[in-house]
């Protein structure tokens, strides 16, 4: 079943290249997404057997992140249907600089999309550090063409930065893998295989110094992919220039994959008695990421960049959560953040489609122009900043409680301070956009005709974010027992509570 | 015995209060070397006004007409908690001094509102000053009364549930004996000073206000009631007289510490005190000029400082 989960999207992706009918392609996309989701659900119900000598195995963290990825992908695929329908496939004008550009071919786009899903699935099920590395690098490569979907200068720049920085980062992670291999070399002829479970078993025998060095390299390497500051620099560019569908997946699913990769190393560290070493580093990176995110969300002029920096903030929170030992909170936060950020990017796509503008200073009156999207935009803001009854409130509270229970007052202070600053900064951007009389619309006539020109919101653009909104609302007041169980298991796996 | 006096206090105030402005005016006339008004001028004025009809501004509403009525009613109610010298008031209860002060607040509130109802700039001006000065006068009055309540009482470390340490006005004044003066004379003197200043301010006497001036720009109380006429104005005059009576009684109670138990002696002493205070007010009005308006807050702050000092002394001293 695990193999099916990986191979299904890959084969379907390759097949995409050969399908000429747009309808069939889109149907295939939906079918794959749905089947993938159903298989994932089955995996949640009954843990599937390990394959390839335990290289591919679904443990609790993997199950959790696979679940997020699959669910988000299903919703995003639904949105993508509407998105691809809306897209104008000919040459058209860029709304910022005015030059002409076109899109890459839909078949390539969908192919990469499915390959991307396959690679992310591979990350979640891999137990071998080498395989994890291969899969993570593969996600970078398959997602690069997705970012360059709109073929214009800015997206090209973003893609370039994305490949360059992430490749360098991942290369460092490869070195980290080798270091880990050195650490696991017991003598000339005996070494521990690079499987997570085996390394944990023989963790006491590992070479501490090499293990630490390996952790540093892997943290910085995968941290680049995860978007921890100061390695996050590619993230705002890639998220703002890619289509919203892709931004949602990058933020909601891809970051988690990198996070999972770091958690795997942390697992080994904890088993080797070096848990505090890893935790302190993650704590530092977490706080620094929040600080950087706060600085750049403040007076941000591009709302998609704002969301991207918010992702930096939230990976910071997740990292900080692991850092203070709040594994449960961090895992819950990963779930909440993925769904919330996915929803926000989808709504941002709707706003962008109506306004043809990304400037937070020009756009006004979203609530009037796009009543549903506006409402979701405001709700998403509240959710992402941790207002109840949305899920992030609970995860942030849990992390705070652990931090204070550990007596880490300075950390708790910084955490709350930065959360507040970010809340204020985002509120100063989101509400002026949502409220007031409409302005910033593409047609410079009276607001009534401009609103009429935008027309009513289509169901395919509204239902996916609504579904996500409902999900985070539910997670804010009710955590299903099955999820609760997996979260607790995952927290135990990474050596926290 | 005491009972009788208690019941007599209110009629006495009703009857004697309008005499006080007369006494003041006669004193001033004496100092100015004039014949002056008759001692009973205020009675004549009230009687005359009661017989007259009234003129109302077209701007005014029922608020204007209600002002004098409510003011007078409040002053009359205040008389019920007012001890005259050592004899208790008809109503004496813990915290009645606050009730008294707030009843005077009601008087002020409705006088001011009635003044504003005319829409006249002059009355507005007077009203504005009235509320300004009361902000400072009210704490001074309450603090000085509180200081007196603490005299000789500051020794119980714990307040028993059944009995409050803090007392009613009547109890306070009943304890202001010669002995109390001997023990804490400074405190009482300071408190009396504060009350005296508040008396001058609240009753619109020189140096705060000049009731006889004819330049409306400088007046406070008189200008607020410019538009009232007939029975309304009679009520205002009467209420003003009663208010003066109340303050004189409060001050006289401190300054005449005759608590012999002999009704005649005690009552006589305090009555003499009340009228001597009226004479004193007259003397002040004769020998002092009106302060500049900007100076008045300083004078009232002085009263507040007196009262505060009194409290500090009484708390430190025992």
């Amino acid at each position: 079943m695990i193999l099916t989960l990986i191979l299904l999207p890959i084969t379907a992706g390759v097949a995409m290249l050969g399908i000429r009918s747009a309808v069939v392609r889109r149907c295939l996309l939906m079918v794959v997404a749905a089947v993938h989701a159903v298989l994932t659900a089955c995996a949640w119900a009954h843990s599937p057997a390990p394959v390839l000598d335990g290289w591919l195995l679904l443990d609790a963290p993997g199950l959790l992140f696979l679940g997020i990825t699959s669910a988000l992908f299903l919703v995003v695929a639904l949105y993508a249907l509407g998105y691809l329908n809306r897209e104008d496939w000919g040459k058209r004008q860029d709304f910022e600089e005015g030059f002409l550009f076109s899109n890459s071919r839909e078949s390539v786009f969908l192919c990469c999309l499915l390959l991307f899903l396959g690679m992310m699935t591979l990350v979640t099920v891999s137990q071998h550090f080498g395989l994890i590395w291969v899969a993570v690098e593969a996600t970078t490569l398959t997602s690069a063409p997705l970012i360059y979907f709109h073929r214009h200068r800015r997206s090209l720049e973003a893609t370039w930065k994305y490949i360059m920085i992430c490749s360098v980062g991942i290369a460092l992670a490869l070195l980290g893998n080798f270091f880990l291999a050195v650490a696991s070399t017991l003598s000339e002829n005996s070494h521990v295989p690079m499987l997570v479970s085996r390394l944990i078993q023989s963790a006491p025998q590992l070479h501490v110094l090499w293990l630490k060095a390996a952790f540093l390299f892997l943290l910085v390497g995968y941290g680049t992919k995860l978007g921890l500051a100061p390695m996050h620099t590619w993230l705002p560019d890639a998220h703002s220039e890619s289509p919203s569908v892709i931004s949602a997946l990058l933020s909601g699913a891809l970051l988690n994959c990198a996070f999972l990769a770091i958690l795997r190393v942390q697992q080994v560290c904890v088993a080797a008695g070096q848990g505090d070493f890893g935790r302190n580093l993650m704590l530092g990176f977490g706080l620094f990421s929040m600080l950087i995110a706060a600085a750049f969300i403040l007076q941000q002029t591009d709302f998609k960049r704002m969301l991207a920096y918010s992702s930096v903030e939230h990976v910071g929170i997740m990292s900080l959560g692991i850092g203070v030992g709040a594994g449960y909170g961090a895992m819950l936060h990963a779930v909440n953040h993925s769904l919330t950020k996915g929803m926000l990017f989808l709504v941002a796509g709707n706003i962008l489609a109506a306004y043809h503008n990304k400037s937070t200073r020009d756009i006004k009156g979203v609530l009037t122009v796009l009543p549903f999207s506006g409402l979701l935009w405001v709700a998403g803001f509240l959710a992402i900043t941790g207002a109840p009854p949305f899920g992030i409130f609970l995860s942030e509270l849990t992390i705070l409680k652990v931090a204070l229970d550990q007596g880490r007052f300075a950390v708790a202070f910084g955490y709350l301070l930065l959360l507040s600053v970010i809340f204020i900064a985002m509120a100063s951007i989101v509400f002026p956009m949502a409220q007031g009389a409409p302005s910033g619309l593409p047609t410079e006539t009276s607001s009534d005709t401009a609103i009429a020109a935008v027309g009513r919101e289509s169901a395919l653009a509204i239902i996916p974010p609504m579904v996500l909104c409902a999900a985070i609302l539910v997670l804010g007041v009710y955590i299903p027992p099955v999820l609760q169980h997996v979260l607790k298991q995952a927290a135990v796996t990474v050596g926290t509570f | 015995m005491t009972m009788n006096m208690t019941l007599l206090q209110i009629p006495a105030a009703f009857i004697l209060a309008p005499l006080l402005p007369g006494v003041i005016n006669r004193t001033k006339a004496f100092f100015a070397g004039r014949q002056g008004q008759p001692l009973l001028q205020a009675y004549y004025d009230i009687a005359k006004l009661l017989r007259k009809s009234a003129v109302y501004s077209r701007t005014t509403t029922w608020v204007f007409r209600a002002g004098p009525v409510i003011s007078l009613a409040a002053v009359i109610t205040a008389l019920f908690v007012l001890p005259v010298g050592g004899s208790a008031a008809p109503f004496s209860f813990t915290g009645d001094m606050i009730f008294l002060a707030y009843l005077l607040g009601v008087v002020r509130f409705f006088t001011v509102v009635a003044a504003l109802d005319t829409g006249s700039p002059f009355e507005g001006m007077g009203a504005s000053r009235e509320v300004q000065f009361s902000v400072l006068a009210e704490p001074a009055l309450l603090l000085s009364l509180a200081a007196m309540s603490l005299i000789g009482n500051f020794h119980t470390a714990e307040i028993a549930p059944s009995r409050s340490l803090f007392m009613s006005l009547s109890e306070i004044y009943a304890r202001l004996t010669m002995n109390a003066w001997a023990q804490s004379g400074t405190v009482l003197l300071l408190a009396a000073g504060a009350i005296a200043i508040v008396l001058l301010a609240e009753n619109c006497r020189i140096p705060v206000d000049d009731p006889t001036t004819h330049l409306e720009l400088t007046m406070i109380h008189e200008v607020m009631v410019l538009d009232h006429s007939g029975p309304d104005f009679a009520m205002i005059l009467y209420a003003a007289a009663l208010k003066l009576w109340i303050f004189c009684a409060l001050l006289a109670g401190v300054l005449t510490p005759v608590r012999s138990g002999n009704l005649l002696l005690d009552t006589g002493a305090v009555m003499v005190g009340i009228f001597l205070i009226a004479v004193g007010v007259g003397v002040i009005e004769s020998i002092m000029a009106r302060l500049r308006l900007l100076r008045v807050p300083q004078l009232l702050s002085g009263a507040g400082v007196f009262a505060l000092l009194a409290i500090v002394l009484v708390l430190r001293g025992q």
Partner: protein
Amino acid sequence: MTHMELWIDILIVLLILTNLKLMGSSRLSACIRTVALQGILLGALPLIAGHGQIPFRVVILSGVTILLKGVVFPWLLLRALRTSNTRREMEPFIGYSTSMLISVGLIGLAMWMGGRLPLPVPLKSPLVVPLALFTIMTGLLAIVSRRKAISQVLGYLVMENGIYAFGLTLAQKEPMLIELGTLLDVFMAVFVMGIAIFHINREFDHIDTDLLASLRD
């Protein structure tokens, strides 16, 4: 010092020299050739280090490495270079002589760090770890200090070479599947970068990264 160890040391010194050459030359085609040479040398390293009896998988891996790093990548890059009409790296952020000086400094740093990391199993040459670290740093330095997109890809390749040097000599027990997967990924990365350079050239008419700095805050 045995015969074989001498050969290893010679190889390592050659690798270090290729790094210095890369940092010192401005002609891009020369740089590409240097990197190609480095790839070939790197591919040869496990063959020499193998005590005479060389397992089959090592032969395959070395072959693939030499093929990819010595032939395919340079060919890809040279093609991109030709289409873009670019010859030289003009005005790098850090000048050539400075780059050389920094490189020398980096050798020292690499030596120090190599000394701080005692290996659990004794190596054929104590220079391998410093070499690997130095190559990685050179690659990073190239990425950071050069303006042309191609130079950055070269930097990435050098860095990858350094990592590879480390991996080949230290962790030979890695399963072959992983090794191949790794190589495939690197190949794909360079391939995608090549495509990106192609698009950059089409979009901007040259491959300077200066114009790729419009997305900022």
